[in-house]
C-alpha cells in the first residue's frame, strides 16, 4: 500500500490531502474540503495531469501574431515535453477566434490545443 501526500491545486486554498492506495486502486482520501478536491486527489494519485499552455505563431494577412494556446483538457505530466516540441513546430494561417482548435489530438493525448484569445482583440 502506498501513501501519497498531495497539495490540492484546484483552488487557492491549497488543502493538504492524503491518499492511500495501490496502482489504480484508491482506498482512502483524507484532508480535502470539497468534492472537487477529492476528484483531483484521486486523479493525481493515479496519473498527474495538467493543463498545458504556450503560444503558437499565427500568420494572417501579412500580420504575425503570437497566439496564446491551451490544452482543452489536462495532459499527463510526462507528455508535456513532447507536446511542447509539437507546439514549437506549429505554424498556423488565417483568422483565429477564441477556442478554435489549432493542434488537434496533440501527441495522441486526446487533448486539443485551442486558441485562448481572439485575433479581433489583439
Amino acid at each position, binding site marked *: 500500500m502506498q501513501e501519497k501526500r498531495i497539495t490540492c491545486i484546484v*483552488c*487557492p486554498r491549497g488543502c493538504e490531502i492524503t491518499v492511500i492506495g495501490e496502482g489504480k486502486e484508491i482506498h482512502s482520501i483524507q484532508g480535502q474540503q470539497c468534492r472537487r478536491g477529492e476528484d483531483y486527489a484521486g486523479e493525481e494519485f493515479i496519473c498527474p495531469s495538467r493543463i498545458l*499552455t504556450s503560444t503558437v505563431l499565427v500568420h494572417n494577412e501579412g500580420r504575425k501574431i*503570437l497566439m*496564446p494556446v491551451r490544452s482543452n483538457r489536462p495532459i499527463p505530466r510526462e507528455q508535456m515535453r513532447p507536446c511542447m516540441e509539437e507546439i514549437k513546430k506549429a505554424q498556423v494561417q488565417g483568422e483565429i477566434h*477564441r477556442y478554435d482548435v489549432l493542434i488537434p489530438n496533440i501527441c495522441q493525448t486526446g487533448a486539443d490545443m485551442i486558441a*485562448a484569445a481572439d485575433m479581433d*482583440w*489583439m
Partner: protein
Amino acid sequence: MEGIAAYMERPVSNTESGTEETEQKEVYDVVMIGAGPAGLAAAAAAKEEGAGRVLVIDRDSAGGGILQQCIHPGFGLTYYREELTGPEYAGRFLTKAADEQAEFLLNTMVLEINPAKRTLLCSSQEHGMMQIQAKAIVLAMGCRERTRANIRIPGTRPSGIYTAGAAQRLINRQNIMPGKKAVILGSGDIGMIMARRMTLEGAEVTAVVEIMDYLAGLTRNRVQCLDDFGIPLLLSHTVTKIVGNRRIEGVWVSQVDEKREPISGTERYYPCDTLLLSVGLIPENELSRTAGVETDPVTGGPVVDQHMQTSAEGIFACGNVVHVNDLADNVSLESERAGRAAARYAAGKLCRGLRERADGQIPCIAGENIRYICPQRIAAPAGDEDVSVYFRVSRPDRDVRIIARLNGEIIASRREMRVNPGEMLSLLLPGSRIAAGELTICVMKE
C-alpha cells in the same frame, strides 16, 4: 463580434475641427484609466448601473492589461468557477464591456488628472494632446514590478537581469527567450510561473531563492510550477552578489538568519546567464498623486471606502492600483463595486468623497497579525448593505480565528485552517451591525 472591433476603433476625441485645441472636450459619465481586468469590470458594471457614456482609456494597443501576457491557467476559479488562462479571462470581460457599449480609447496615455474640474489630460500619437471631461473617474492603472534598484543587490551591472514580468512579456508576447540557464530571486507567483514557462521552453532553472522562511506566492503555484519540474526552492536564502561583466555569469547565494542577514560559510555559486527578479509589485500611483488622493503607506495605493471612493470626490480606484491582488477574480469583484458606485456618483446618487465626511467614517484598524485592510474606511451609515473587507496577514499561521470587532464587540468571525501573507482573506460584515465607531480585525489562535 463585429461590434467589438467597431467600438475599439471609434475615434473618441473631437477631431472634426482638425485643430489641436485642447479646450474642446468630450464629456463622459464615467472614465476608467486602464483597460486591465479592473477597468473592464468597472466599465461593464457602470453601464449596468445605468451610466450614460462610459470610456476606458489605455496606453496599450489592446485591452486586457497584464493578463495579455499571463497565458497560464489559474484565472476565474472563484468568479466563473472554472479555470481559465489570462487572455480568456480578459477576453470575457472585454466582450462584456463592449456588449454594454462601453467605448475604448487605446494607445492613449493619461498624463494628469484635475480633481477639481474632473478633467483628464491625455496624449496619443494619433490625436495628440486632448482633454476629457468626466463626471466620475475610476483609477485602474494596475501596478509595476520592483526592480534591482529597489532591493540593492551588490556586484556588477551586467545584462541578463530582468524582472519576471518583463521576461514574461518577452516570451509570451514577443517570442524572445531571455536566456538558457536562470536563477530566480523571489518566490512570488510571477517568478514561479516563469520558472515553469522557461523550463517548458527548454531553459534550465537552477533555483528559486526566497529570503523569507515562507513562500511569497500561492501554494498551488509551488506545486505545479516548481515541484512538478523538480526546481529547488531555497527558503531563507538570498542572492548576495552578481558576477559577470557584459552578461551575467552567475550569482552567489547565501542562507540568511532570522534578521535576514547572510550567514557566512553558507555561500554557494550558481552559474547562470539570466537572473529573474520576482520581488514584489508596487501600485502605479504617479497619476493618483496628480489628483491629490490620499495614499496608504502600507499598500502604496489610494485610501478607499467600501464604494472604492478615494479621498478626492468623484474619483474611485480599484484593482492593483489600490493594493496588489494575487487573484484577478478579486480584482473583478472589487472593480464592479467601484464601477457601480462611480455610476451612482455620476447620477448624483452617492455621497461625496472620504475627506468631506470625516465625521461619518469608520476607520478599519489592523489588529493582531493583520498587515493591512482594504477598504481602509467604511462610509457610515452603510444602511443595511453588507460590507466585504479584504486583508492580508503579516505572517503565516495555522488553526486561527479571524475576528472583526466594532467598538470591542464581535460582529463577524470565521475559522481558518491556514493563513498566509501571500493569500488575501476576506470577511463579510453584516450591514445591520455596522454603526459609528471603530472597526478592528485580528487573527487569533484557536
